[in-house]
């Protein structure tokens, strides 16, 4: 008795949902718009002179939790544009079969050289297709749209606000709080290490 009415009511819900717009899309013909921060594959970047940004500092290779980045470092030489001695890559591979897309390599890069892309790699037929070589990574710079995140943007976002910095990523323009919390915490931390040094100096002066 109750089963029938409840089943009919459930059927009514189904009918109501039939009038709602579909949530699925025909995938290969139509591709979902991805968010600005969406991250899948990787790319290595050049600077405005067309020189490689990567200075082969090994920071990303060290931070990678699944150890998928392998780097060969070329001997240091002078840059033809800036004239400074800097490191260069000889070879760079990133194994996507074991990558967990944690974005830590992007965050630690001192020169914003490695970034992630918003379009994934095309599925391959061999395991080698899933290993990003240096050529593929440099090709991705222009072949694929890049994500928002670079090392400097991520670090800027995480740094405590200095005074009244205007940040676009804030929700409310009214700034009432920042003066209270963050600077108050950093000050004692900066002051404390100075104390033992001062004491040590005083002791050293008294001793002779």
């Amino acid at each position: 008795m109750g089963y029938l009415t409840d089943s009919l009511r459930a059927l009514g819900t189904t009918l109501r949902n039939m009038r709602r717009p579909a949530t699925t899309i025909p995938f290969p013909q139509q591709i979902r718009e991805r968010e600005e921060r969406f991250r899948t594959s990787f790319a290595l970047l050049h600077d405005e002179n067309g020189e490689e940004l990567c200075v082969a500092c090994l920071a990303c290779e060290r931070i990678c939790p699944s150890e998928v980045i392998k780097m060969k470092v070329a001997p240091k030489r002078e840059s033809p544009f800036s004239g400074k001695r800097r490191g260069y890559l000889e070879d760079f591979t990133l194994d996507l079969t074991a990558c967990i897309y944690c974005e830590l390599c992007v965050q630690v890069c001192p020169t914003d050289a490695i970034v992630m892309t918003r379009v994934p790699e095309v599925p391959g037929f061999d395991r080698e297709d899933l290993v990003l070589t240096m050529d593929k990574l440099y090709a991705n710079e222009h072949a694929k749209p890049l994500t928002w995140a670079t090392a400097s943007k991520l670090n800027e976002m995480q740094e405590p606000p200095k005074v009244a910095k205007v940040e676009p990523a804030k929700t409310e323009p009214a700034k009432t709080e920042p003066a209270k919390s963050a600077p108050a915490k950093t000050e004692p931390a900066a002051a404390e290490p100075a104390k033992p040094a001062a004491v040590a100096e005083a002791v050293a002066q008294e001793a002779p």
Partner: protein
Amino acid sequence: MATAANSPTESRYRLDQVDADADLMVLNFGPQHPSTHGVFRIKLILDGEIVIRAIPYAGYLHRGVEKLLEKLTYAQGVPIVDKNDYVSPMSNEQALVMAFEKLLKVEVPRRARYLRLIFSELQRIASHLLWLGTFALDMGGALGGGSTVFMYCFRDREGILDLFEAVTGGRFHYNTHTIGGNRHDIPLGWDKRVLAYLDMLEPRIAECESMTTNNSIFVARTQGIGLIDKDLAQGLGLSGPLLRASGVDHDLRRDAPYHAYDEVPVRVMVEQAGDCQARALVRVREMRESIRLVREALAGLPEGGINSGKIIKMPQQFKAQSGQVYAAIETPRGELGTFVIAGGGDKGTAPYRLKIRAPSLHALSALPWILPGHTISDVVVVLGSLDPIMGEVDR
């Protein structure tokens, strides 16, 4: 233990009570059964269709996460635990990061604590939606629910994954928490998207309710099934919705507030019955409560920095003194704790030993007590109501 039964076989249906001529049969339920929600095996000893004894076997999804976390440094560990409870990765990250923060004595800024609360509650909604969908699927397509509710719940859950994608860039493996705060601040206009989504979701939960918890077929299949009484629940160390459905008023969000739960108080949902229906009711009500919490937290979201620790630059940058800490949070499944023993000195950059207390493992330990006496079709319902996630059980 304060229960009437001292062992699973002594519960309500004992082996020696079975007729000696009974033709007992052993049935391996799983490990590849779709209703086990992962790779999990229960050895069922059956008398006809009635379960006499149930012996669970876990460990098919063991990946050595705890050992891996001993190898990795404090800075590298967070993205690994995303894969433990793969239905609520945000909660996993938070549990680990909170233990590390306690160990390294790092404060979390107020804004980051609010963001963590919002992520945690959105993740709770997503996790419970997935549970409701798969639970209706476990019931079969007999009611208007079945695969229909499954599809509706997954559709609504996508909205939360989209919201997380907008903040972190990942749909599932976020790596958005770090020691001392968060890695990503919310983008411009994100809070409006969240509020619009919650306004859309609220009537849809009522819709799902009308097809499940208010549906008489659903009630007939869940009422009085898989009873866990108060003593058994406490004796087995159950937590989360399972414990609250058995009439124990316990919620870490209220009893040991972390994040910003002391500023945004939680109303704890408790049911007395302790059966599958009570567990379903608790979870559906928790979704509503989570919607309220997210709205309240977004309204009171403070300005300021999101990270007070060191920004991750190299793996060995966090050094801990030797010691041990335990930090726990209330995930959608219950108390997820992380126990860390830190080796000091030159071994101070990585945990010496790390143990994860997973709520799903304790939930599964109730099976030998509650399954005997039920039919095979009820085994699926009982297992679904416990909401176990095998990635978390086996780790």
